């Protein structure tokens, strides 16, 4: 067995991939589409929410609050209304995401505690509305506190909770779905495509042709896995670049550690793909097993759609056997929280263990099937 024989079959595998438009489409375009789809269509984040103001703008107290709202990162003052009745029309035209209405004589009543202010959110999108109104309320609280200090000269003890979302102050959904999409794509490329490509050769019988050649069975398999390993490196890089430069997800941790985690996950997925190819007799079956058995659980348990924590206990236990879950947890920790290896050691151990077991089982199965 020489390397030349191995590379000849790797080369062929790449030719298959580049000849098949469907494959190319899945490999090159899907990560981009998924990132963009989840990023812009399924977004629940608040970014420069438009706030309309209704009140006496010549009132210095009002002007100060409006100023502070405008300078808030996530809010932006976009218009003035002369009467609260105009809010509804504005929301209907999608002219603003929220409105703030100051009562009559707001400034003069401000210090005796009779000043009135109303925050109106667009309830047709409850999640976003809740988030925007809480930001505006936060600004008001800040103003109130500052005012208390400037009057009494000391800080009045107050029980106002200040809510802050660490690592993700804007509650950007991309922080959640980028690791999920990463898991999904790598899983799909490595498991589904490997399984389908091996089963295809089983179907057409060409696998026999490779096995009757002097290339050892193990190397035949490695040469089939190899291109998908390369493709997943390519995809991993694409997703990372896209999420960093387009979605502005920070990469706080070590890229080397992130890559190591990805490699372990890729090996796990390749082993699953190999196993699927052994148990399925047609490309359709292989695709079905991967779609229903791998992609769906990955979608469900990866936190792209539902948070794992709100699931029934049984489903949570079940989610533990999904390799993607551990990968996604680690990506979140390393990429978003900037944690080091020590904090992911448990998850890493579990995933590496899964990789070892799956790889051993699939290679053993493959060998016995040949005899």
């Amino acid at each position, binding site marked *: 067995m020489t390397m*030349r024989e191995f590379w000849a079959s790797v080369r062929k595998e790449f030719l298959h991939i580049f000849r098949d438009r469907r494959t190319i489409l899945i490999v090159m375009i899907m990560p981009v589409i998924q990132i963009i789809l989840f990023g812009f269509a399924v977004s629940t984040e608040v970014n420069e929410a438009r706030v309309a103001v209704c009140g006496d703008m010549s009132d210095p107290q009002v002007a100060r609050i409006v100023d502070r709202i405008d300078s808030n990162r996530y809010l932006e003052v976009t218009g003035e209304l002369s009467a609260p009745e105009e809010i509804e029309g504005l929301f209907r035209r999608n002219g603003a995401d929220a409105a703030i209405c100051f009562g009559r004589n707001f400034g003069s009543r401000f210090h005796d505690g009779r000043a009135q202010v109303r925050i109106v959110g667009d309830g047709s999108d409850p999640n976003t509305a809740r988030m925007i109104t809480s930001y505006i309320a936060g600004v008001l609280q800040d103003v109130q506190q500052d005012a208390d200090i400037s009057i009494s000269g000391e800080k009045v003890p107050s029980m106002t909770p200040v809510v802050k979302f660490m690592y993700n102050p804007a509650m950007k959904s991309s922080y959640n779905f980028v690791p999920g999409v990463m898991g999904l794509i790598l899983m799909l490329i490595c498991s589904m495509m490997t399984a389908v490509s091996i089963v295809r050769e089983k179907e057409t019988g060409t696998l*026999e042709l490779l096995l009757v050649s*002097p290339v050892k069975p193990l190397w035949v398999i490695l040469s089939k896995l190899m291109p998908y390993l390369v493709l997943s490196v390519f995809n991993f890089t694409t997703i990372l670049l896209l999420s960093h430069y387009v979605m502005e997800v920070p990469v706080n941790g070590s890229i080397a550690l992130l890559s190591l985690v990805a490699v372990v996950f890729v090996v796990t997925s390749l082993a699953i793909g190999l196993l699927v190819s052994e148990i399925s007799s047609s490309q359709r079956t292989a695709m079905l097993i991967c779609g229903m058995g791998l992609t769906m659980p990955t979608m469900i348990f990866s936190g792209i759609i539902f948070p794992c924590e709100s699931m029934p206990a049984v489903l949570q236990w079940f989610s533990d056997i999904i390799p993607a879950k551990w990968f996604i947890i680690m990506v979140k920790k390393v990429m978003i929280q900037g944690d080091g290896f020590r904090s992911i050691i448990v998850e890493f151990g579990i995933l590496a263990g899964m990789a070892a077991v799956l790889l051993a089982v699939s290679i053993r199965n493959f060998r016995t099937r040949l005899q």
Partner: protein
Amino acid sequence: MNTGYAIHIRNLVKKFGDFTAVDNISFDVRKGEIFGFLGANGAGKTTAMRILCGLSRPTSGSGTVAGFDIRKEQEKIKRHIGYMSQKFSLYPDLTVRENIRLFGGIYGLKDREIHEKTEAMLDMLEIRDAGNRFAAELPLGWKQRLSFSIALIHSPQIVFLDEPTGGVDPETRRRFWELIYDTAEHGTTIFVTTHYMDEAEYCDRVSIMVDGRIAAMDSPAGLKESLAARDMDEVFRIVAGRAVREE
């Protein structure tokens, strides 16, 4: 040992659980001989052939293929045999040149050798213009002759042909056999399975497997004489008719 024989098989048995697919067969194939391996579907042909090709281990029995032990030296056997099956011998989504290059590569040929072989092959088969066409686009007869040539790319001592000419007319089959004769004349042993009795007539010797055993083995002329049959068709019907096993 057995240097006169390309294939030398003694008491070969292959069992799958309770089922005995190959039941104690013994035979020899001389170097440069064209040996027809006949039998109905399910007679055990394919199983026996897989063992000879180093794809499967026998349950018991012994033998050599190209001088190498069928139990212990499977890797060496694979290096010294060629294999072709009509059903699946080319990758349809690769071009003719890419197919040749692939098999040259996995049989360990150097780039320069592959290049030379490719040009020689395209000339010999008179398909020079089709070199960059996808294998899927070739007529079936061309595909078969191309896969046969590819099976010979590493100059094997023996070439196994598993029903090489399915689905083509007798004229195309005859042209294919010219290629086989040519190869055998140069000393390569041909081991061929077939359903077509006109092909069986072309062989130096044929064996007919029935229920996992070799029920008859001789030259086509010898078989016809001993069974008083007009042609190989009749020979096959008489011998295979003794089968008790279901297909």
